[in-house]
């Protein structure tokens, strides 16, 4: 089929990594700490040094300051400015008026934001029970891939984004698989009518460990455990017999994300527990660069384990400059 958009293009993650590698400088990847703007310019650009100092004043950010612009960001954000002549501001004024009038609308908006304020941090701690996320050492060039996992379509008729993960190109597909949480993994199998008092210890995920990803006509089967089955073989045989397509199978545990060919935004499949099917979407691939500020808003709530993992290195030193305040809900 003809290619409609750039987003339809098949991306080989390793190729993507190598393409950028030729263009990026060391400073782009490792950050520019300790290198002043002046040195950086004279190293990378063709600007003659005698013009440089002048450009610093001509192109400084102060040149963008408007006359009656509030210096305090909270003042600026609290209400729309009058007398700007900007159409977008006029529309925003209209919107704010409506928010005042209709509280339901206001709360509807705050729920629908792309960047939601984190849900209560302690909940995250309790549910996921992660001790400390596995931190991969990032020495060479590396890409970070955003994967969206949707709630199974059978469970709800609407498509609901359930979980979002960020994985490194060097990680295995099985590492993502182990992190995807789904109720059907936690079903307690078996009949307990004879022993109603027995405390169940076994969950479905301990018994039935098979599962696969289906990405660009290739099935990636999880065959780590000897008891695992190749669930895809039935489908592959059927497709061959009825002339639908020619699929192939590979092992999930042998595949890195950088080996994949993906189309961004294309729905793929994750199947486990025999019939539980999640749509999986790769939404973004980008280079890992240093000094990424990760907090989506200020202030931002973290659970203890995430806070530790994001902000400190293995020796317990701060990774970058930030402020942290304790937050306590329990009224004791």
């Amino acid at each position, binding site marked *: 089929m003809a290619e409609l958009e750039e987003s339809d293009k098949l991306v080989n993650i390793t190729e993507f990594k190598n393409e950028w590698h030729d263009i990026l400088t060391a400073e782009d990847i490792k950050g520019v700490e300790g290198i002043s703007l002046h040195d950086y310019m004279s190293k990378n650009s063709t600007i003659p040094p005698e013009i440089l100092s002048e450009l610093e004043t001509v192109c400084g950010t102060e040149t963008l300051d408007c006359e009656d612009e509030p210096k305090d960001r909270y003042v600026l954000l609290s209400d729309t400015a009058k*007398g700007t002549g900007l159409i977008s501001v006029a529309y925003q004024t209209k919107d704010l008026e409506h928010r005042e009038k209709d509280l339901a609308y206001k709360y509807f908006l705050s729920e629908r934001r*792309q960047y939601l304020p984190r849900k209560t941090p302690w909940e995250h701690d309790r549910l996921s029970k992660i001790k400390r996320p596995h931190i991969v050492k990032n020495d060479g060039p590396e890409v970070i891939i955003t994967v969206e996992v949707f709630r199974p379509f059978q469970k709800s008729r609407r498509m609901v984004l359930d979980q979002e993960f960020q994985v490194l190109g060097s990680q295995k597909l099985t590492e993502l698989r182990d992190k995807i949480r789904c109720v059907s993994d936690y079903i307690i199998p078996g009949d307990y009518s004879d022993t109603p008092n027995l405390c169940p210890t076994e969950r479905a995920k301990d018994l039935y460990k098979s599962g696969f990803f289906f990405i660009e006509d290739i099935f990636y089967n999880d065959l780590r455990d000897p008891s695992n089955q190749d669930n895809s073989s039935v489908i592959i045989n059927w497709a061959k017999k009825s002339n639908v397509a020619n699929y192939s199978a590979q092992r999930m545990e042998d595949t890195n994300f950088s080996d994949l060919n993906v189309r961004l935004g294309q729905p793929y499949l994750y199947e486990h527990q025999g019939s539980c099917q999640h749509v999986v979407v790769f939404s973004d691939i980008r280079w890992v660069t240093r000094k990424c500020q990760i907090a989506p808003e200020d202030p931002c709530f973290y659970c203890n384990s995430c806070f530790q993992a994001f902000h400190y290195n293995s020796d317990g030193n701060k990774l970058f400059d930030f402020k942290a305040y304790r937050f306590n809900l329990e009224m004791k």
Partner: protein
Amino acid sequence: MGKKGRKRVHDFIYSPMTGVQTDFLALLKKFVDSGSVRYEKFAEIWRASKMTLIFSGRQSDAEVREFTEKCFNIAKTFLFGASGFQTTVGGLYLLYALFSKQLFEPTVKIQKMMDVASKEYHYDVEYIFWKLRHSNAFHYVSCPTLQSGLQSFVNNSQEKAAQSYNRSGPESLLRDQGIICELTDSDAIDQLRAIHEQYQRVKCAMAGPDADEPQPSLSMIDSGIVEQMTKRIKQFESWKKRKINKSSGRSNADDAVVASDSGEDSDTDKETSSTAYTKNIGDIRAALKAKAMSFPSQSSRSRHYGATSLLCSMNKDLSKISESCETNQRSAKEVGISQTEKEKTPKRKKTKNTEERLLAEKSSDKTDSQVGKKAKKSETSTPIKSPKMSNESETEKSPQKAQRKRKTKKRNKNISDQTDLSGQSPVKRCKKDGSVDCRPEKLAAVDQVVTGDVEVTLDIAQTKSKGQGKRRSGRKQEKAAIKKKTLN
């Protein structure tokens, strides 16, 4: 539908980005009209139109963050849009301004496309590009916008909101026009047909090897969806025509609302808003393009850092621009054509390109000699004339030196002209320059993506919602028809 009886939470539909495109276009139009590519000029226009206040009233952190990211996406369309050198430069300045003026602590990073065709030969442009890079402004991604299309399409309330907010409003109307045109011009419908046919085939295969029809339990989708869509698009077109005829009188009233909101009734304001409303966005961009195409004649008027080196680069740019413009124009119709075919097609246009390039060289030679004369006449006239100039005295001290420099630059320029004429492809020429990696054919594709990305999903939502509306209105008729049947 199970949600029939549920009360609607809101009638007012949220769309934070309404008007931003128009504001940016107005700003860039002023910049292009000034005929300059200097940053100083841009900052002046930025201050005059109080663009920083675009962030005002975006109340929470989450809201500003989302808004800023979307602003970047819009600003990027000018940078990658390949609609002329000035617009591209304006787009870069716009990104810089937005980036340095954004209001929250963890700075939102600009997603950077693979083929950023940064043709920096002007020192201030170059300075700003490297400054952005120094401040870690870029993310290096494989796709210009986040591909959460599925999610937003499925819970499409927001997307629906974006396109139908103020449906009567002129801006949304214009935007719709662009989207629908894109849908009908491109092969989107054909693609849909292909996907649909494949889907139908697989369903048949599931029923059995010899089955002609899929199992009834699998009929989740109307088999005539493509025909329906084309029909609805046609309906929309006729509706739009009616609407435009009607709103030609009303757009003035809408202008009045905006003007009263802003409280400022300066002529420029009125002018930009009226042009934005009455003209199609495509027309405005075409105007920008035309302005940029006529740029070399104006270049002598504006002041440059290192005039001669600039002119030689302008040559290259012009050829690139003309080519990318052409590819851009074609791209609307040829999106479906694969890359290899695209590479073939420029051969036809090559003769035209070389003509244009020669013309441009002639004109630049003229301006070049003018500059040379000027330099001879008044040794003190330095290439830089900014009010805040700090090293004016330095250049004044050594005019001969400066002249010598200029001469060597001129020589270099001639050499590069020769290489120009040797008929190398623009791609190769760019690569010679080192850090610049520019692929004109791809640029057009990028433009397509950036502008088309969200809009395509919107489109389907649009036709869907239209369909629903239609259905609702058509329900009475249906009921009447059923009654008739039962009577018969």
